């Protein structure tokens, strides 16, 4: 069994990120992944520091841009297990366009969004998922905008795997991470997580009192039912589990020369192979 080492972190004591990191290590270990076979692509923010705290390959890039990078890494080398670690600001705010279009792209990557409903690293401004009306130092009149619903958006866009979990429920989170990693295609896992410093509303207790695993009888195959579940929130309870799942050809499946044969990275290169294209210019 491989070992995913422990590092010093820049996270606040008690941060929900610790639970997520621990679950991630467990998920990778239980799946029998070796560190050098795994890449974590991340952007900027506290969640995006995750690859620094676990011994796997890392691509710690720019704010909001972890998903297109992760997708391209997978296209370049389909043998790698590619995970995107990101916050909700990184993914749904700065990277919103990439979020939408990578759902459509359906590259086989697992996308873990640490969603604490606040901008922590920049000291407490509203994030796309902060509740409407919640006051912050910037949103002095309370958040005026509608709360972003990532699961509903992903389901609507045709995502092939849409799930939610909670950093305070390790067993559940590990199982969701494993399912997302093993899913063939783009897998969104939105992870509820408290920000103990800046979000005084959505505390550990707030989530704890509200999250409830989706009933075992639920079959995540009906888009309409999934869409309804995605809208359950707050005092009505927050369902955690796999909301929607379907089998669809991935990006690589759809391109014959990528699907067949060795990963792109291992192809033999020879300039002479391109010489024939000069016939186009005769």
């Amino acid at each position, binding site marked *: 069994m491989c070992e995913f080492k422990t590092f010093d972190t*820049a996270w606040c004591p008690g941060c929900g990120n610790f639970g997520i990191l621990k679950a991630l290590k467990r998920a990778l270990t239980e799946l029998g992944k*070796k*560190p*050098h*076979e795994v*890449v974590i*692509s991340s952007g*900027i923010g506290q969640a995006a*520091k995750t*690859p*620094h705290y676990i*011994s*796997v*390959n*890392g*691509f*710690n*890039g*720019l704010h909001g*841009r972890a998903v*297109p*990078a*992760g*997708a*391209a*890494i*997978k*296209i*370049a*080398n389909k*043998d*790698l297990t590619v995970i995107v670690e990101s916050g909700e600001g990184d993914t749904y705010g700065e990277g919103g*366009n*990439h979020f*939408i*279009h990578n759902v459509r792209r359906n590259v086989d990557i697992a996308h873990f969004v640490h969603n604490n409903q606040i901008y922590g690293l920049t000291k407490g401004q509203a994030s796309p998922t902060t509740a409407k009306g919640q006051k912050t130092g910037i949103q002095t009149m309370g958040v005026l905008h509608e709360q972003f619903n990532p699961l509903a958006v992903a389901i609507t866009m045709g995502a092939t795997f849409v799930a939610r979990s909670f950093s305070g429920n390790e067993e559940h989170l590990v199982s969701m991470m494993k399912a997302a990693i093993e899913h063939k295609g783009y897998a969104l896992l939105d992870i509820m997580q408290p920000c103990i410093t800046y979000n005084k509303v959505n505390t550990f207790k707030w989530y704890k009192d509200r999250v409830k695993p989706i009933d075992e009888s639920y079959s995540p195959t009906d888009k309409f039912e999934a869409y309804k579940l995605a809208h359950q929130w707050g005092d009505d309870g927050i369902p955690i589990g796999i909301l929607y799942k379907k089998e669809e050809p991935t990006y690589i499946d759809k*391109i*014959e*020369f*990528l699907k067949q044969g060795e990963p*792109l*990275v291992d*192809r033999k*290169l*020879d*300039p*002479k*192979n*391109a*010489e024939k*294209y*000069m016939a*186009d*210019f*005769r």
Partner: protein
Amino acid sequence: MDYNILIGGSAGQGVDTVGTFVEKALKRMGYYVFSNKDYMSRIRGGHNFTLVRFSDNPLCAHKDDVDVIIALNEETVRVHREKLTPNGKVVCDVAFGKEDDKNLNLPLKEAAKNAGNPKVMGSAAVGATLKLFGIQTAKLEEFLNEVYDGEILAANLKAVEEGYKMVDTIFQTTPPPGEDKHILINGNEAVALGTVAAGCTFYSAYPMTPATGIMSYLAKLQEDANIVVEQAEDEIAAIIMALGASYGGVRAMTGSSGGGFALMVEAMGFAGIGEIPLVVAEVQRPGPATGLPTRTEQADLKFIINCSQGEFPLMVIAIRDVQDAFYQTTRAFNLAEKYQMPVVIVSDQYLADYYQTVEPFDFSKVTIDRQLAGEEAINSDGVYRRYSLTENGISPRIIPGKIENQLVFVDSDEHDEEGHITESAQVRVEMVNKRMKKLEELKKELQEPVKVGEEKGKTLLVAWGSTYGPLKEATERLVSEGISVTSLIFGDIWPLPEKEFIELAKTAEKIVNIEGNATGQLKDIIRQQTGVNCVQSILKYDGRAFSSQELYNRIKGEVL
């Protein structure tokens, strides 16, 4: 012998198609061809034209004077008449109706109707035009046979034949210099061909004129050449995907025009600090903002060399013509991987879209030198460090997943040798020094500018990129008249190769910069890097490229 044919009409009338027929027929006869396009940013209507110049001698620029105008509409006659040479003729349909000594009012529409398809009027015009020059239609027929079949082929062939019968030969032509051994290719296609030759297997871009041609040609090859061509959701995703693919271990590239490149600049800095090899094509159009989408300019140079915040090593290569486009693209991939930095190849709409007959590219001259490390990259403690400090600043690079138990970590934050975030003052300085040292190393292998004209002329002209062709022709004409002039045209432009310029500047009586922009950007860079001032500028920023005649006139009138 040096003739010029203009094909004009509104967008959607077939200007492009007729242009292709003319240039392919002439090229396959064995003539040298140079054609360029002037088109508006609209899908239908407006006024577009193509200039097809041909000669028994190699051509490297377009010409303004026109011998024959193929007018697909009346407007073409009105707009371009004054460009006709004294013996020039207009090939147009009788419907235009104006009787004069220039207009050949021919029954082109009728010929097309008789041929069975009113859309083949252009082919009748091409037939007539070839006859005006006394050029056989066999090669045109050969080409038509390759691209069409069935009824549409028959209609085109018939129209050509009808058109050919309509006129008499009036222009003297010399026979072509030999059998056709050349290729006819434009700048974008040459970049794309270089991309494939260099072993690039991942190209991501967002469509933007005039850079799109690179993506279009690569897309045509994608399945056969096994190259992924991904149309990204925006330019930011395009460059980030290319960076991801490059990190993943393949050769990757993106391309855009100024406005799209503007969106990519944060990622350019990431490529710099992350030391991720990347090739970017920046095909300039006039800016700022949306500017003139389908026109040409050389005004992004300073922006490109200063792209992104902070300081990092970057190489910029301005391509000069279609040959250069191919070979410099292949070179850019090798340099990007050797120095683990972004390399920008700079082109512009003129070069992107002009077609030139050139020697077929020599693929045996192309090397793929990936400079990847193996097990030797692992340090004595058994750990690979992506950013290990080395003498020349270049750290051994391995591909993630390829060496058991070794990890590859790249970071946009300042980082230590393993790639992890640091705020250490000492490490920051070490890492900045490491990255900038690569530039010093690169300077040792820069290519000096191309020199045209006298060895050491009294007048030194400096230019860059696509101004090469027109300036070469103008310079040669001046020298043939006994005028002492030397032209230096920069290709490698950042870092700036200084040796040749400084050497010539010592003896030159006058140094003049010639650029397609309003402020003289090369002049500023030269002064900044060498302390030498260009005393005079010849600038053009009307959205059109210099022609050689225009440069010749302006150099004579303004400089000499």
